[in-house]
């Protein structure tokens, strides 16, 4: 009679032991998993954090409106995506790269930082300034007397009819 009772007690203890272990594991998981998830996702980004990136982007659907103030549904979705990516721990640069890959470089408020982007306008402006400067310089410079005479004497030689006419006029005088 005692044996079964003892066995029962032993079984109860064993069950209690495993139960405690299971409970401890579950408790540990319950604490660890939310912490891990929270660490992976990070805190929910604020509107300011989202808008800091959004104002550097333009949705192709609403071309002249920056993403941070654009009221359309498409832009709201883009802002949500930025929020999600920030929560996933993506950097500002990574998010911009993703948007460029998905929608093209035209979504950027500033053109991509390439040498030609800045070099071509700078060279064009310098070349234009040089041409204008040289043009005005030569235009404003008075013609010297020698050059004027040369031009005067050169003209009749260029046109035989004019030369003849001038000759006739001289004779009449």
């Amino acid at each position, binding site marked *: 009679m005692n044996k079964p009772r003892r066995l029962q007690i032993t079984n109860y203890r064993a069950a209690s032991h495993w139960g405690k272990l299971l409970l401890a594991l579950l408790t540990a998981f319950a604490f660890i998993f939310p912490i891990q998830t929270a660490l992976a996702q990070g805190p929910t980004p604020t509107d300011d954090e989202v808008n800091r990136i959004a104002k550097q982007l333009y949705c192709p659907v609403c071309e002249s409106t920056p993403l941070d103030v654009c009221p359309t549904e*498409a832009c709201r979705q883009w802002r949500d995506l930025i929020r*999600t990516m920030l929560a996933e721990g993506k950097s500002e640069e990574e998010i911009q790269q993703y948007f460029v890959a998905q929608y093209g470089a035209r979504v950027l408020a500033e053109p991509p930082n390439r040498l030609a982007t800045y070099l071509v306008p700078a060279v064009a402006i310098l070349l234009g300034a040089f041409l204008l400067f040289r043009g005005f310089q*030569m235009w404003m410079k008075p013609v010297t007397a020698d050059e004027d005479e040369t031009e005067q004497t050169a003209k009749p030689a260029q046109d035989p009819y004019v030369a003849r006419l001038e000759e006739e006029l001289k004779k009449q005088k």
Partner: protein
Amino acid sequence: MTETSIPAPRRGVPIWVQIIIWVFLVGLLAIVAMGLQRAQQGTVQPGQVIDNFTLSLFSGYEMDGKSEIHLEDLRGKVVVINFWASWCKPCEQEAAELQQAWTEYEPTGQVLFLGVDYVDTEPEARVYLKKFGITYPNGPDLATRISQYFRIKGVPETYFVDQDGVLQYVQVGPFTSIDQIRAQIDPLIK
């Protein structure tokens, strides 16, 4: 006695400067004209052979296990290219009709529907596709290359390309009935 001072004659702008300035101005005008022409051009027109493009497909919306579609591989089939977006309300009007038409034509093997998701986010696009039970190949218009080639003016727009790769019809705006879709596809099936 009044003395009139005759100003010294000035040189004219040298000819090479004039030429460069005129070339620059003409070039500038040409660029502006090209931009204006492109803006007023509208979509690609029927009769034009559509150049090859590649459409990356969403997972779950691949074609024969391929995650990319090249238009040139689809010669011999009528291709219906539908531009849509999850944020586009008029697109929802035609979503069911398009899927119904795809269900009708898919068994023939002569027609292929392609959904090109324009300026959209993938999570929202997937919600839309699931909502309307769309099963034909779909993918994002990466870097808006495809929509720029077709010069779309908005969504939805649908392009019907025949077996030889020639554009036959452009539907701007949503279809209002499945008969509208059939009316474009049936004459193209040889």
